[in-house]
């Protein structure tokens, strides 16, 4: 799996004319594209059969070219927006062709294209969507940690003030998120696998127990990094070794 800002560093190379890097990035992003398009279509897709995936791939490539850090949107989120937008347009077109007689009053066929041409409105559209998505993401995150018995208020109380402690706990959270079986255990038993973390990270049991809620919250953020794109890109977490 890839992290948003790793893609952004690849983006940097591509901007400097590193074409193999582009190939590499697109290849790496294929599962991501498949998941985004698959969720949009509501079914699992196959690279060999389904045109939607190709549309998504082209949209991702477009996103690489058009991405602007000034938008204040993570590249992953931006790419997802572009893919969704293009695939939706594609599906609409497909559907119209399928039932021409039934859908006369649909948006003008070049609506999407004209929006793409108008940079100002496009940027505004991106910003609006980003705000909405960010909000939804936080709500989802709130729900997710609530299921694990944690509120934001708890996290205020248990956030380690000292940078060192925080980095230690984030290291533990990264370890937990990187080991899917451990995170699954956490979800099932609603209990942090302390012994495994002690063994895996060498952090003392006391520290882990004390930072329990914070570790779980951060691990959740990292584990569902594709769900929580905005949050993950917002916090500059030191990357622990997966």
């Amino acid at each position, binding site marked *: 799996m890839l992290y948003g800002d790793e893609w952004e560093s690849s983006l940097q190379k591509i901007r400097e004319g590193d074409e193999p890097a582009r190939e590499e990035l697109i290849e790496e992003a294929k599962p991501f594209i498949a998941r985004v398009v698959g969720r949009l279509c509501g079914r699992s897709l196959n690279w060999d059969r389904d045109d939607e995936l190709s549309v998504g791939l082209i949209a991702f490539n477009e996103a690489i070219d058009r991405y602007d850090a000034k938008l204040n949107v993570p590249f992953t989120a931006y790419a997802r927006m572009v893919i969704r937008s293009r695939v939706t347009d594609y599906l609409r077109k497909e559907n119209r062709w399928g039932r021409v007689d039934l859908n006369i009053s649909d948006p003008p066929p070049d609506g999407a294209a004209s929006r793409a041409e108008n940079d100002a409105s496009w940027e505004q559209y991106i910003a609006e969507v980003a705000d909405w998505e960010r909000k939804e993401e936080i709500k989802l995150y709130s729900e997710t940690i609530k299921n694990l018995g944690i509120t934001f208020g708890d996290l205020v109380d248990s956030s380690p003030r000292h940078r060192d402690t925080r980095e230690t706990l984030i290291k533990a959270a990264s370890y937990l998120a990187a080991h899917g079986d451990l995170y699954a255990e956490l979800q099932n038993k609603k209990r942090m696998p302390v012994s495994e973390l002690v063994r895996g990270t060498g952090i003392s049991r006391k520290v882990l127990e004390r930072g329990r809620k914070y570790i779980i919250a951060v691990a959740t953020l990292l584990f569902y990094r594709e769900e929580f794109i905005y949050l993950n890109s917002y*916090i500059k977490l030191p990357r622990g070794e997966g």
Partner: protein
Amino acid sequence: MGQGRGLVMEVRKKSCIVLTSEGLFLEVLRPRGDVEIGQEIVFGRPVQRWFKPHYLAVASLLVAVFAWLAFAALMPRAVAYVAMDINPSVELGIDSSVKIVSARGLNKDGEAVLQGTSILREPLRDGLQQIIDRCIEYKYLDPNKENLVLATVTDVWSENKGVVDTGDVYEYISKPINDSGVDAKLIIARADRETLQKAHHNGITPGRYLLQTEARKKGVLITDEEIQLEKIRELEKKKHFRTEDLIKHWRSNDRHSAEPGNKTPAKDQMPGEPQMLPGAKETPTDEPDHRPGKSDNRGTKPWKLGADKNNGQYSNPSKPDTEPPKKVVNPGVSDKTPGDENNPEMPGKGHKVREKPADEQGESPLGEDRLPGRPDKEPGGKKDVSAKPEKLPRGEDKNIKKTQRQNRENDRKEQWTPVKYIRNKFEAWANKKRSEENREQRLENTANNPR
């Protein structure tokens, strides 16, 4: 982190929870304007969680409690009460350093006397001086009459017994009276706490209360209303009793010179000293009968202030009171009395205080031998305390009832609390120290003033 940016995760009433780019969750004050989840805001200082209102409430409550405890511990509290009936009845609360912490009049005259005086926080001596001066000024103490001053000293706490020395009170009262040349009979008694409370209950001084109960024992009925409202002198005339027969006058062991037998010279009496009113002493009552211990009789005698000049003549008890006062300056006599050495209050200076021997028929010769008698050891004194007042017709006066209610409230306030207990323990210790120092000083004074 003075300033920071954060992503709003949760919006609360006055604050919001943000996630910083460092991965910290913080609760910060809500910025002005609308805040939405997902918005990035700039915040100042994170809200200190323990400054939140409920923490604040608990903390301030604790502070208040501690402040109250400290205040209560430092507040001057009366450890003894000195009550005085001239006709104005006043009661002074005395703290452990013998300063006046409360003063109230128990009747209208008492209030009038206290009005305009500034005796709070004054030493007892100065306060009493002020009150007596005022009584003389207002003619409550009339130079043309023989006046009666009835005073009681009550210790509130057994731990602080003796903070207010009866002898001292005697001196504090007698001195200004003597200095002004007013003729007055001074009776001082110690009352116990129970008596004080019962007296408070009836809105009167312990002295009057003792008078009432003692009178009843002798078959003299004084109603609550009478004891509250009438002057003691008038009651004496009306009911034909003598206060000095009913209330044992305090008498100490170590103040020999105050006794008539010690021949402290009564000098410099005011010229034209009025004679005692014949009415006041017309009937020597059968006092010895109700006092089982003969030897204690001496302690029960009221001391005559100012008027009694028959120095050394009490051995002729049948007539001393009716004799016109004779001014006798007899400085040499006191030298012969060993007891004088123990009398620091009256060093060198002749005291005008005389015990009135009027009703001591046949007992006076024993006077000098009876020094150890203490009033508070007398069975009679105990009787005073335990005697329950009979139901007597109650004065329906509203004011009286009000005073009684207030007094009851005062009594309730004096209930036992740990703070008081500790404070009293401490004060008892402090008093002990103080009295030791005083004794040393007295001895020194006596040594420096050989008479």
